[in-house]
Every structure is written in structure tokens, then in C-alpha cells.
């Protein structure tokens, strides 16, 4: 059996049919993850013993007739999602020794369906970054070119799937942190509607923007994992009480009559030519499948970055206040009083980008600036949201590039935060509006680096997005594995 080629459903079926043991699957992926760790730096924590124990437990359960949606499927978890008894660092020095006493709701949901929590993936510190270079544990490498970044902030989760270190993974997306690395690593990555997935146990960055979502090699895998984690959670007041959807069962490649909007504001200077070409090719394919293509306008697009960096940083400045050295995590030593403990703990515990964003956010909330910054940004956010509301009166989904560039070189943008922030120019507005979107691989640039197309849907219409993506995936005959399949 070629384990590498098995998708999540095949793994689950093989284990439940006793053709293979969960332990063999876990051992296979552990071997890959450990041997490729030095090259990729995809994981922060890989607890071999813990993973094998989970696999053994699953095998025992299967003996007793257990059936789940993800029986024995190893899922890598971004290191900002709390796992009980398993170190959760947010890729920060300040939480480098933090072991949560509880599981995030998504982890509980995965476990209930028999999934194996397979290690904690590297990321930008506190999910702040677009290149995975701000991690306290060092940068992650892109499997398509080891000198390049994988995107961020969920770089480790994207690489875990792209380099076949795990069949699937979870990331989190505040301004593009799932979709952009998915695009740069040539895998599928989805950010669901805000409120679709419980945030309980997701270490907050921008609370009104954060959403957990899956990385996968195929749309089927993506649909399955999404449905497992899409459960209403009374512990999250922003979680919406809807019936648990059956995304996998309802996958449908017939997209005849589907109205696809192409926003003119997303095809601007600065977007690489190869990407425009890749998207246009995809549009042609979808057209052939029976979709109707319409040009639309999202007039407030250009304000997205400014609005995002006021709101997300404001929320972050407050969310990160709790890391003060008093209760858990890193505490600076040799301090003479409380104030010095606070200052030294934060100074030594946080990295540069995190400090920059805390400062920005603190400023945007300060009295005398609040109205001009945070409050005004909130108003413009409503305009951006209304752009989408209006657009979805005319079209079913919106199609555009996920990222204006393919993977760039490590170190290329680290000294230019503004250039780095522009990496998320096409993904940010989706978070501001709270709508769902996916990034699907759609070809390669001249350097052989993956291009991603973003399909954006209306509130809670994840199924429509998945169906459009599924139709495309079938039409192109599936997505290409990274060169790491040879490793």
C-alpha cells in the first residue's frame, strides 16, 4: 500500500476495514516528518510517543468496532490551537513553555471522529506575518524551492501537507494566513465563515477576524475536515448555531449556471503576470464547465490593508496583554519590581513584528486617536463588507488571485513591513467581511512555483465554494504533489 497516495477517506476506510493499522500510518508520517524536519522546519513540537499512543488507542477502538469520519488520520495542528498536555507556543518565546490544561473545541471534534493529533506546526509568531519568518523557532522552507518562504502565518501547516508530512492539517486565518501559504505551497486551504468554526482554544490574534480552517491535498479532504470541525460551540459566543453541514456528501461537480464574479480591483499593477495568466486559464476552464463569468466591482478594496492593520492590531494589543509573566509562560529574571517584570518579560518574550503590532494597536486605541483610527476603520470595514453583500446579489462566488506574488525568497521582505503586509492584499478583505474563501492550486509560474486562485463565497456558503473548487479539481485531473514526494 502506498500510504503517501492515500487521501484521508482512504486512510480512514483502510483502517476501519483492518487493511492497515493506524499505527502504521502514524509511523509512516512520523518517519517522514522527523527525517524532513531539518529541511522544512515545519514542526515546533512532534511528540512521537504521544502520537503512537493515540494511534494504538485508535487501533484498539477499531477492534471494538469504532467508526469515525477521520479514524486514524493524522492531522497536523498549527501551534496556536491549544492541545491538552501538548506544548502550544504560538511560535513565541513568551509561550515557549506553555502546556495548555485543555483542548480547543476543534481538537475535541477531531478526536471524537478518531483523528490523531499529529504534532504542532510552525507559524509566524502569534500568527503575525505572511512568510513564517517571525517564528521564534526559525523560518519554514517552501517544498517547491527551499530558498523560499512558504507563506504565513500558517506556514508549517501548509508545508506539512505540501511536503506530505501529514495527510492534512489545521491552520488559522486572520488576514489570509491559511489561503496565502496554501497558494504558495500548492495545496488547498480554506477559511470558513466567521462564526462557522469555534474559536475556543485558538490563541487569539484579531478576535473579530480569526477563524480556523483546514489544509488538504484535495477538495474532498478539505470538505471532510471542514465538516468535522464545523460544530456550534456554546463556549464561543461568536459561534453560530447552525446544523452541522455534510460538505463531503453534498460535493457536486456540476457547476452549470454558477455565476462567478471577477472583481476588476483585483487585477492591478503589482500582480505578477504569471498569476494573472494562471487565473485567466482557470476562468476559461470554469467557463467550459458551464459557469457564467461576470466582471464585478468591489470599490472599497483598496482600503482593506489600512483598515485591517488598525483593527487587527488594536485587538491584538489587547489580546496579548495577558502575557505578562504572572501566571504562565516566560517570565524575565532579575527584576526589581512589578513594572520592571512587565517590561522585561514583554521586551524579551515578544519578537520584533509582534512588538510592532502591539504598538500600532495600542496607538490606534489611545484616547484622542480612537475616533480617527479604530472607530473610522470600523466604519470603513462596514463599507468593505457591503461591497461583498452587494456583489453576492449578482454572483454566487467571486474568483481572484490568492496572492499577488508566488513564493518569495527568505529574507526578501523582512526589512520592509509594508511590502510584507501587501502579501495579504487579496485575502484581508474576506476576513474583514467575515465571509468564507478557499485557495485552490491553479498552475505554476515560470519558476515552477505554485499559483493559487481564491474562490470567495457568501456567508455560510462553504458548500458553493467547495463545489466550484471540486469541479475545477476534477477538470484539471487533481493537484500536483510537491517535489517532496520523492523524498
Amino acid at each position, binding site marked *: 500500500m502506498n500510504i503517501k497516495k492515500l487521501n484521508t477517506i482512504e486512510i480512514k476506510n483502510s483502517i476501519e476495514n483492518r487493511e492497515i493499522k493506524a499505527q502504521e500510518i502514524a509511523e509512516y508520517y512520523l518517519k517522514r516528518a522527523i527525517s524532513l524536519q531539518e529541511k522544512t522546519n515545519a514542526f515546533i513540537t512532534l511528540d512521537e510517543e504521544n502520537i503512537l499512543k493515540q494511534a494504538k488507542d485508535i487501533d484498539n477502538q477499531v477492534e471494538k468496532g469504532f467508526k469515525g469520519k477521520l479514524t486514524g488520520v493524522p492531522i497536523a495542528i498549527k501551534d496556536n*490551537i491549544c492541545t491538552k498536555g501538548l506544548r*502550544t507556543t504560538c511560535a513565541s518565546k513568551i509561550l515557549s513553555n506553555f502546556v*495548555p490544561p485543555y483542548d480547543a473545541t476543534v481538537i475535541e471534534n477531531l478526536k471524537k471522529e478518531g483523528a490523531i493529533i499529529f504534532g504542532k506546526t510552525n507559524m509566524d509568531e502569534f500568527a503575525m506575518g505572511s512568510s513564517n519568518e517571525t517564528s521564534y523557532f526559525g523560518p519554514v522552507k517552501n517544498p517547491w524551492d527551499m530558498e523560499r518562504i512558504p507563506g504565513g502565518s500558517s506556514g508549517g501547516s501548509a508545508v506539512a501537507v505540501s511536503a506530505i508530512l501529514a495527510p492534512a492539517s489545521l491552520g488559522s486565518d486572520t488576514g489570509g494566513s491559511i489561503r496565502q501559504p496554501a497558494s504558495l505551497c500548492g495545496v488547498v486551504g480554506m477559511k470558513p465563515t466567521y462564526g462557522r468554526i469555534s474559536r475556543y482554544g485558538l490563541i*487569539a490574534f484579531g478576535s473579530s477576524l480569526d477563524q480556523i480552517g483546514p489544509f488538504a491535498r484535495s477538495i474532498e479532504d478539505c470538505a471532510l475536515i471542514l465538516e468535522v470541525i464545523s460544530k456550534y460551540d456554546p463556549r464561543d459566543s461568536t459561534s453560530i448555531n447552525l446544523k452541522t453541514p455534510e460538505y463531503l456528501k453534498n460535493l457536486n461537480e456540476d457547476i452549470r449556471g454558477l455565476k462567478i464574479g471577477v472583481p476588476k480591483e483585483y487585477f492591478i499593477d503589482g500582480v505578477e503576470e504569471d498569476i494573472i495568466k494562471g487565473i485567466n486559464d482557470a476562468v476559461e476552464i470554469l467557463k467550459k464547465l458551464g459557469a457564467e463569468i461576470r466582471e464585478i466591482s468591489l470599490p472599497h478594496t483598496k482600503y482593506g490593508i489600512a483598515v485591517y492593520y488598525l483593527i487587527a492590531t488594536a485587538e491584538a494589543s489587547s489580546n496579548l496583554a495577558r502575557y505578562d509573566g504572572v501566571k504562565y509562560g516566560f517570565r524575565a529574571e532579575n527584576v526589581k519590581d512589578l513594572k520592571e517584570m512587565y517590561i522585561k518579560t514583554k521586551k524579551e518574550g515578544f519578537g520584533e513584528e509582534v512588538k510592532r503590532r502591539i504598538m500600532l494597536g*495600542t496607538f490606534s486605541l*489611545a484616547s484622542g486617536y*480612537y475616533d480617527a483610527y479604530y472607530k473610522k476603520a470600523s466604519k470603513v470595514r462596514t463599507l468593505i463588507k457591503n461591497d461583498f453583500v452587494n456583489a453576492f446579489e449578482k454572483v454566487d462566488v467571486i474568483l481572484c488571485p490568492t496572492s499577488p506574488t508566488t513564493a518569495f525568497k527568505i529574507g526578501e521582505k523582512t526589512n520592509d513591513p509594508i511590502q510584507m503586509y501587501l502579501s495579504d492584499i487579496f485575502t484581508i478583505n474576506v476576513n474583514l467581511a467575515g465571509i468564507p474563501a478557499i485557495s485552490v492550486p491553479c498552475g505554476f509560474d515560470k519558476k515552477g512555483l505554485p499559483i493559487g486562485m481564491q474562490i470567495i463565497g457568501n456567508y455560510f456558503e462553504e458548500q458553493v465554494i467547495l463545489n466550484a473548487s471540486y469541479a475545477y479539481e476534477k477538470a484539471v485531473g487533481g493537484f500536483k504533489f510537491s517535489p517532496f514526494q520523492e523524498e
Partner: protein
Amino acid sequence: MEFEAVIGLEVHAQLLTKSKIFCGCSTQFGSTPNSQTCPVCLGMPGVLPVLNRKVVDFAIMLGLATNSTINKNSYFARKNYFYPDLPKGYQISQYELPICSNGHLIIKTKDGEKKIGITRIHMEEDAGKLIHEGTYSLVDLNRTGTPLLEIVSEPDMRSPEEAVAYLKELRQILLYLGICDGNMEEGSFRCDANVSVRKKGDNKLGIKTELKNINSFRFIQRALEYEIERQIDIIESGNTIIQETRLFDSSKGITIPMRSKEEAHDYRYFPEPDLMPVFIDDAHIENIKNFLPELPYQKILRFREQYGLPEYDIDILTNEKEVADFYEKCLSLYNNPKALSNFFMTELLKELNERKCKIGDTKLNAENIVEIFKLLDEQKLNYNGAKALLPKIIDTGKSPSILLEEMGLMQISDTSTLESVIIEVLKSNKKELKEYLSGKDKLFAFFVGQVMKKTGGKANPKILQELLKEKLAKISIDDVDNL
């Protein structure tokens, strides 16, 4: 120059919910440090608050009781500041749109009733506690997340007496509603005061100072008196008041400035993204309105009309809801408002005060109180006997008629028994008898007293007086020596 004080008050009332405002932990006071905590109230990474709807209901109750507008849409905000007893680094509170606004309550002053405005009432979470131990400090987060209502008054009070009257009225309403235990020592009813002075007749407000965390009515009175005096002295000596936060030192009876560093806060309020706005529909408000208990001022009005009691009696009987309820229960079984009121004021409440306990803490029941009155009416017991019975009734819960037997307090109404005691008394007090018969009428009471003494206070006073009068009338001064 004549000055007047301008006082506004901020009260923090801890709510009597079983669980905390944003998690399921218990709110019980005095448990082992950090035993009543969970990841949510410890501010662990990744946790989220879930609003306890009971807190909203309690806020609506107080809003209705203080004639406030209930805002159908309000929302929570984060108040950001660093302190070790605040595990998240922010307090979840309400800022721009509180749940209640524009209320008022009525206080009694020496010049009659006065309306004191309530600017706003909002919901928030309490912080934990720090315990300082020499070179280090310990954090107890049991109190973290206990629900609070903050009640902010208008600067409508003009004297320490008015401020205290307002606080007492507010506290009484909270107790009547059963949403706060009003315990100032344990900190479940805390008060900060904003105070300034100005020339009488001026419209412009003076520069204010804020007095923090004063934990008794007496201290509030004294702190305000001192602070008003201090401010007047400063103005009269030609200086200006510094706007600052001051603490009351109760041992010295003075206010002292807090270190200015600690108050230079920019709280950077912004809407709490982890909670949905609080929406309250009319039906819900109506529902709460229907279940609202009678409030102190309503009860006073009703007692006045229904029972025709003096104001003094009404004030005492309605001061605590439990007493008023018990009084009315007794009254429903024995319809003599004034007799019961007298007994409550002079005997029952005195007994309870001595024991420092409430009616509910004892074995008292209305039936027993009413039985005392029936025994009095039936002349099986006299008032002295009733007074002697009461402590036993409170402590044992036994019925008065049983105790009457047990304690031998049965009133002596039998004429022949009483007559023989009277004769005995007269015989052994011949000197006084002679004086009486020669016109010293006042000595009648002396004989009554002597008989009472001999009967252990059990003689039926009415019959005794009749018999004594009768007997004395029959004796002439010459007979005395031959008695």
C-alpha cells in the same frame, strides 16, 4: 463666604449569582485561594467569555427599580490596564452603551424628599485580589469574574448626609431585589465618591477629587466631611484644588493622595469582540417587571395607607424586607397593626439585634408571635410574661402555650389567690398602708408592685388592680393595726 459641596457616587455592587459572569465557576466568598477558577477566569490563552444571562436580568431589575431606561441594545467593552489581579490584562465592562441609563431614586433629607439622578448602570467583571507578603505578592483569582453592577450617580448630592442617604437607599433596593447582599466589609457593596466644593449659588462645578474604596457608611460620612473641609480651606487660603484620587485613612480620619502614577490610565476602551451585543426584547423586560418585588418606597406608601402607622414605625418595619414580610405575615393572622408594630419595635427587633441575627436565622414563625397576642388577650399571659417568653420562642421555636407551662408564666387571674396575696402584702406593709389611707394615693402603685413581686410577675394586672382598689376601699385607717 458660604460653600456647598457637590457629590457624585460610583457604587460597585457584587451580584448574588451562583456562577461568575463569563464562566461557570462559583462566586462563593472565602474559599481556598484559586480554588474557584477555570481556564476562562484565569485568562488562559485561547479561552473565550460566555455571558451569564442572570447578570443581565439582575441589571434590568435594578434598572427598573431605579426608574432607568433599559437600553435594548448594549454591548461590552474592554477596559485595558495591567495589574497582576487582572489576568487578561483587560476588564470586560461596558462603556459607550451601558445596559441602563437615566434613572433616579428618591432620598429623604431634612428638607424633605429629594431626587438623585442615576447616570448609568453597567455590567462588568470583578478583578482578583493581591496578598502582599514582604518581598513577594500572591494572587488569588477566586473573585475574578464575579459579576458587578456599577451604578454611577449624577453629582446631585450636597452634603455627606445626602450621600449616605443615597447609599442606604440604593443598598436597600439591592437587598429588596435580592440581587446583592450589601455587605460592605466583605466588599460586595463598594463606593467611590467624586467631591468638589463651590460658592453657594455658583453654577459652575469646582475641581473634584475622587475618594476610593470606602467600606462603611460611617467612613463615607467622615471621609466626605474631611474632604469638603480640606477643599474649603484650600480655596479660602487662595490656592487651587488638584484633581486627583485620594484614599481615606480611617485610623487618622483623613484623606491622602494616591500615588499619581497609579491613576494615569488610558484605558483604551473598545468593543469586546468576543461577545455579541446584548439584545433585550420588550417581552423580557415586561416579564421581569411582573416578577419585580415591591420596592422600599412602594412598601412605605402602602404601609402608610393600609395600616395607618406612624412614619417612625413604617421606617423601622420596612427597613428590611424580611422584617416587613414577617410583620405582614403576623398581621394576616392577627389584625392589630399598632399592637404588633409596638411589639416588633420594642421587643422583637431588640432581641434580634442583640443576637446579631435575622429572622430567617432563628426558629421564629408568625404563628408563635400571634399566639403570644392571643394569650395576652385571653389574659393567660401578661406583658412581662410575653417579654420573658420571646427569647425562648426565638431560640427553641416552641409554641408560647407550651413554654408558658414549662416556664410557669401562666398569669394568675384567680381572685381568691390574688386576694390572699393582697392581704399578705397589706399586712406586711402597714406603714405604707396608713400613709395611703391618709391620702398618699401614689402608694397604690407600690402595692401593685409588691403583689407582682410576690407572684413572680404573673398576676393579671387588670384583676389585681380591681381587687386591690376594692380591698383598700373597705379598710379604714383604724383597722390597720388589727389586720
